[in-house]
């Protein structure tokens, strides 16, 4: 079988609930790799995922996933798709190993195979030692890992993860993102993960699909979407004997005709302008002249956030 060019392709997909347009004529081509589905809460991410899984029929439009029609070939498709839902409630008193094994079986693994695969998947997500613990006694971080393990246990071609980092603290979030990236790279499993945090999508995704209130804001390769350098992020510190120096830096840069995003009293600012070189020089001079202490100067990539701002205004 030839691998389909797009993992997910959708054309003109709309979803209407009553008089609420959850998705508005969406057309997508999602290639292989890790794809981030970003948008605020209620922007239609979960609805899109349920359409991709064939759990809901779109009001209009058509979808093809792994070359299959989710509505007509749903069972066949879902045998090859792993899904980690957003909800964090699972059978409390079930050991993680039983839970993962059971879902592997339901997704088509023969019984003997399911047990070893469940154990392998739990080791892979770092819960090997904990695999016999009841789900109810696990922390949020561990539960998120169990969700990931059950999604990959039946060797899927595509994994859909709904908010896999929700409720995690920074350390746990990093670990989870690295894990997802690693699974996709090492086992060539395509992943689509949804998130309302733009930073994490920027960190691990190859492709991005950005939604806002059911409409497509942007889609494509991440590096193409956010690649443009147009400024720097500066983080400063105030020296006790030169009060107000940070605000002074901002003022000087503004006076030099640059676009400065800075809230008074904060130590961080974004400086935007036409030429990177001009910005660098202006920043250097402004800091040197106002006597602030430099903590950090970094090239500011165009952020996904800007895509949203651009789309909204």
């Amino acid at each position, binding site marked *: 079988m030839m691998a389909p060019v797009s993992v997910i392709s959708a054309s003109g997909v709309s979803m209407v609930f009553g008089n609420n347009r959850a998705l508005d004529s969406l057309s997508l081509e999602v290639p292989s790799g890790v794809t981030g589905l970003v948008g605020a809460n209620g922007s239609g991410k979960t609805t899109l995922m349920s359409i991709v899984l064939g759990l809901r029929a779109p009001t209009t439009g058509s979808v093809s996933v792994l070359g299959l029609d989710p509505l007509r070939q749903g069972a066949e498709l879902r045998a090859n798709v792993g899904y980690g839902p957003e909800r964090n409630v699972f059978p409390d008193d079930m050991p993680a190993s039983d839970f993962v094994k059971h879902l592997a079986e339901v997704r088509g693994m023969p019984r003997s195979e399911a047990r070893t*695969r469940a154990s392998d*998947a739990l080791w892979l997500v770092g819960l090997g030692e904990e695999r016999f613990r009841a789900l109810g006694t696990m922390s949020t971080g561990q539960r998120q890992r169990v969700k990931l393990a059950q999604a990959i246990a039946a060797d899927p071609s595509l994994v859909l993860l709904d908010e896999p980092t929700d409720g995690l603290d920074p350390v746990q979030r990093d670990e989870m993102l690295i894990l997802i990236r690693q699974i996709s790279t090492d086992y060539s499993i395509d992943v689509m993960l949804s998130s309302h945090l733009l930073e994490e999508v920027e960190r691990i995704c190859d492709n991005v699909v950005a939604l806002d209130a059911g409409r497509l804001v942007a889609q494509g390769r991440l590096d193409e979407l956010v690649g443009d350098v147009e400024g720097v992020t500066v983080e400063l510190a105030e020296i006790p004997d030169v009060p107000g120096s940070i605000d002074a830096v901002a003022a000087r840069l503004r006076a030099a005709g640059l676009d400065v995003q800075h809230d008074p009293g904060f130590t961080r600012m974004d400086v935007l302008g036409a030429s990177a070189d001009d910005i660098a020089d202006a920043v250097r001079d402004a800091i040197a002249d106002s006597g602030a202490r430099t903590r950090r100067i970094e090239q500011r990539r165009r952020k996904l956030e800007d895509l949203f701002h651009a789309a909204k205004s």
Partner: protein
Amino acid sequence: MTAEGNAQILDRGYRKFDGQRSGVWGAVRSTAWHSTRSVLGLGRKARHKIAPVLVIVVALIPAIVYVGVAALVGGDEFINDILEGVIPDFSALPRGSLAAIALFTGLVAPEALVRDRRDGMLSLYLSTPLTRITYMAAKLLSVGGLMAMVVLVPTLFYLFGMTFAGLGPEGFGDWASVLVKILVSGTLASLVYALVSMAAASVTDRRAFASLSVILVMLGVLTVVQILVEGAELSINWRLLDPVNMPMEMIARIFGDAGEYPALATERIYLANAGWVTASSTMLWWRYRKAGA
């Protein structure tokens, strides 16, 4: 030989799967088995096992008592004759477990259905090859099988026990015919109990209310019908609405016996059971047509 030549990475655990996937039947089987385990509390803490095990034991008591008595005092032809006059027919034995059966319906169906709705398993199942129909088939398999443990298993035990005590059906032909009747009637009755209790449990997402609903449908309707027929002196046909007794009557009629309510025509009893099955299936379909998405 180079250093690399000696080294091999053999197994990194997680790997690709090249075998044959087990398809929808595998999914149904696994889900049914998993649901059964969860109802019986297998793999869960001991306190989850208490209630179901207790009810199953209570359901077995009549069969155990009769078989025990037969085994202890039986053997002698004279005593066996007396015993045969006292011990119940195969078609009447399950009636002795009626209270346990009614209680079990309030326990099994809510546990099998409502937990999945509450803890997100239903939507997870629907993301697998299972659909709402196949999911429900798996649950029916599980709940029906569990009901068979209180409806059918005691009678089977009774048959083998009595045969052992020399009080079973005479001749292999008769014996096999009784066995087939027990299996067929018990399976059908279990399925009716399963569907009715599943339909009653499906009205709510809270387990407690689901138990309440099942108990009300089972015992409430039974009490109402009882008062209507005896107090209000209405037609005996009102008994056809009784979801506890009708499957029992069906068992009796399959054996060709008169049952508890001989005044009711056999075809009406079959119709009453078919009616409960249809109504319950419709209810389930309606309650689950959008659930879990």
